[in-house]
């Protein structure tokens, strides 16, 4: 009977298994089962976290509560002094506001049917999230087009005493913005763009595929290239995004 060492002990070539291997496998199996049971118990005990059902009976109270949360959140963001985005799903636009003042606005078009978009965003629109705000956690540029020819920038860079790459702007053809742990906004333009690094794009796609069961909402929108350039470049980490669906003029 030949024996060879393993991490658990000797494994023989016969049908029998050494005592050490037997114990090791049994312990591992029991540990995994106990871990699975304890995690599921902990998960049930946690409940649904910070989602809060609006108080009061009736649709009227719920509507007021949802609106109140949106306005309160925007007021706090405006008082904070920094820029913040407002995604208005009703008016189909994204605004950038600074201290409550509108500084940039762009219309968006849904790449998916309206019903799918609203379904994806329902937790925010029904007041299940308090506040209806997510913070930017990352972005990725899949495809782009150089705004200026390299030959032009080479001349301009010499005159301006800067590097040509500092002057170049990349008009996005396709990019994504990730907000919080749950929201991905996928943006497309009609720019004739070339793909970025295939390795980075593959990694981004793989990450999205792995996180798909976890991500709460993903919406696809289209916009003009000039607006996409601004949105992509201004999107810095922790930029707040307020989500709403207004149907009336404000004020």
């Amino acid at each position, binding site marked *: 009977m030949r024996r060879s060492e393993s991490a658990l002990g000797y494994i023989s070539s016969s049908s029998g298994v050494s005592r050490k291997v037997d114990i090791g*496998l049994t312990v591992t*199996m029991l540990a995994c089962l106990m871990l699975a049971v304890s995690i599921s118990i902990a*998960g049930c005990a946690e409940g649904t976290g910070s989602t809060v059902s609006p108080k009061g009976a009736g649709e009227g109270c719920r509507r007021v509560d949802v609106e109140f949360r949106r306005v309160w*959140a*925007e007021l706090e963001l405006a008082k904070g002094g920094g820029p913040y985005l407002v995604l208005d799903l009703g008016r189909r636009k994204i605004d950038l506001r600074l201290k409550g003042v509108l500084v940039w606005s762009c219309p968006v078009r849904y790449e998916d049917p309206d019903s799918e978009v609203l379904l994806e965003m329902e937790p925010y629109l029904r007041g299940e999230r308090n506040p209806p705000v997510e913070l930017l956690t990352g972005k990725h540029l899949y495809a782009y087009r150089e705004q200026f020819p390299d030959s032009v920038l080479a001349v301009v860079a010499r005159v301006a005493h800067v590097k040509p790459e500092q002057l170049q702007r990349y008009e996005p053809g396709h990019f994504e913005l990730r907000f919080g742990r749950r929201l991905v906004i996928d943006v497309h333009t009609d720019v004739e763009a070339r793909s970025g690094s295939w390795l980075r794009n593959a990694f981004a796609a793989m990450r999205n595929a792995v996180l798909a069961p976890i991500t709460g909402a993903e919406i696809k929108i289209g916009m003009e290239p000039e607006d996409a350039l601004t949105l992509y470049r201004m999107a810095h980490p922790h930029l707040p995004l307020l989500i709403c669906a207004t149907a009336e003029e*404000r004020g």
Partner: protein
Amino acid sequence: MAVRIRFLVTAAAVGLAAWFLLQHTARWIHSSPTAEGAALAAPSLPDDEKLAERELRKVKDQLDALRYSRPYIVVDTNASLLYLRSEDSIMLKTPCSTGSGGKLVDEATGRRWAFNTPSGVFRVESKLVDPWWRKPDWAFIEDSLGVPADPSQRLDPEMLGQYALGFGDGCYIHGTVYERLLGVSVTHGCIRVGSDDLERLYEKVGIGTRIYIF
């Protein structure tokens, strides 16, 4: 055979544990607010609908009070565009040039400059006609020229165009002899605008007009 069975059972147990862990993680991700988000959470409203609507009106009024009713200037450094606008309309939209982001170091003295346009909220502090540019030291150092001792050698009557609007710490919205470069971020921090649009801007804004730069 027994080993294989035990191995399969162990693998299944590990898979089950991983599945439960994933579900728990998903539940955590969907439920737990971030610290910043939690700070924006609204307080509870009264149960009475009329009282709730009163509270809603109060916060709406506070938010509306932050709106600026007069026209203001917006500079989008990302797309190199300048606007004169209000909340509801855009009166002027024109390409501009903003700071290049370049850096300069004077090797002789170790002084450093970073050529960025500041971002934030400012106000028009001065309005100038036919401004002359008093070249700072970096304008000479950048071209490997000596910094002149005679102040009159710093003056350039053409570079800034016909008008200039001053704001912030020595920044200006002004004209340029390089109108073909509008839309490219090539400046040393100031904001350059074409002569025709600059004239319209100069006529429409006053001292105190807000400037939002992002």
